């Protein structure tokens, strides 16, 4: 068994808070630059320029890309050959707390969802997975709520046509309209259960934006961009930069579909210990 201390995990998570919030993901930057180059709507181009300038300014000045530094979502892949010395869950939460404090990120967490109360830095949401090997992979996705608020889940019949599912995804994006900071990255989880399809949709946002997308993803992206919602909802060809679908086996009686929208400031960072 390889030993990894909880302190090491805490420090690594704190660093991820900085990396994710200050440095926009390279694949997102490339997609934004491409959108800027190809956009023909004048206002949309100006907005995309501001978005790119913002990412550069955040990087240089060590400022949060967006003031909504989100609720921390931490995905942990734990190698089965790892022995964690200490409390893993506490280490991750302490890492988020320490990182958010140190790098002046926003305390956006309410301890009680109904009573609200004082704004805190933690807890974060932790998803764990046991994998082969003797390493730990930590990924932090700070998820802002402007876009999280536009998430939707629909339990389709197992006999539903693919067109119905496409319509649901496209309409979810249309109903987000200008509110959730387009151009979006659209995460879609298909299959599993009601709850796990939501996790799949979120995990889909971690996938690198690239040209390697499925036919269904390409069709959806085309349909979404036909809306001409555009950056800030003020028109243009770029309503979404990508659609990412993640699937999982499901039950004979059901077909859950979740949509999790990300704003253009899709932030995440990973480290392997």
């Amino acid at each position, binding site marked *: 068994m390889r030993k990894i201390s909880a302190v090491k995990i805490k420090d690594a998570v704190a660093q991820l808070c900085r990396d994710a919030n200050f440095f926009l993901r390279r694949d997102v930057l490339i997609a934004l630059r491409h959108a800027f180059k190809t956009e023909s709507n004048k206002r949309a181009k100006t*907005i995309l320029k*501001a*978005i790119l*300038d*913002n*990412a550069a*300014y*955040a990087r240089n*000045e*060590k*400022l*949060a*890309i*967006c*003031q*909504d*530094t989100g609720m921390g979502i931490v995905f942990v892949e734990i190698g089965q050959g790892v022995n964690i010395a200490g409390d893993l869950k506490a280490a991750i939460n302490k890492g988020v707390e320490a990182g958010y404090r140190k790098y*002046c*990120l*926003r*305390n*956006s967490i309410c301890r009680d969802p109904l009573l*609200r109360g*004082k*704004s805190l830095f933690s807890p974060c949401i932790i998803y764990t997975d046991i994998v082969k090997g003797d390493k730990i992979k930590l990924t932090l996705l700070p998820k802002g709520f*402007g876009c999280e*608020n536009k998430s939707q889940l629909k339990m389709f019949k197992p006999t539903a046509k693919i067109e119905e599912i496409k319509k649901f995804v496209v309409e979810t994006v249309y109903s987000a*309209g*200008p*509110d*959730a*900071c387009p151009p979006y990255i659209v995460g879609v989880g298909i299959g599993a259960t009601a709850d796990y399809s939501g996790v799949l949709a979120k995990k889909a946002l971690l996938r690198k934006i690239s040209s390697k997308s499925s036919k269904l993803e390409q069709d959806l992206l085309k349909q979404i961009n036909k809306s001409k919602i555009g950056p*800030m*909802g*003020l028109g243009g060809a770029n309503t979404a930069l990508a659609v990412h679908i993640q699937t999982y086996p499901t039950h004979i009686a059901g077909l859950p579909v979740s949509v999790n929208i990300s*704003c*253009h*400031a899709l932030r995440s960072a990973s480290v392997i210990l």
Partner: protein
Amino acid sequence: MKKINTFKVGQELLFSGTIYTARDQAHKRLIGKIKRGSRLPFELKNSIIYYCGPTKTPKGKAKVIGSCGPTTSSRMDEFTPLLLKYGLKGMIGKGNRSPEVRDAIKKYKGVYFLTYAGCGALLSKYVLSAKTVAYSDLGPEAILKLEVKDFPLIVAIDANGGSIYD
């Protein structure tokens, strides 16, 4: 802000002057105060509210504020008509507003602006000073008085009720 009635939908401008940050919980409190007839923590008449909850101000970098972009305006829709009735002139945020807010903007001759959404780092460049004026217990949702210079705005709903989203 005398010129507000002349602003037209789609017009881009650079604003210099005073704006107050307020978002969900601060709105709830302001409305509570108005309904009870209590004094508000700032002069609402002819004021501009910015839907914004900034990050903490970085220390030792000569920064006056952290990242400070707009939040989704529609969450404030239920509170906005009453604030307009009591003198609020302008709002800055992101996204569309309800028909009720649009009607109230027209009725009370106000204006709703957009600013660059998801560009909080960049927008901090245009803030000269930030001072907490109320509700510091709300943390990032406290009301701050900001002095801004050349803050970029787009007129989204004008005093005639015209909307950029039509």
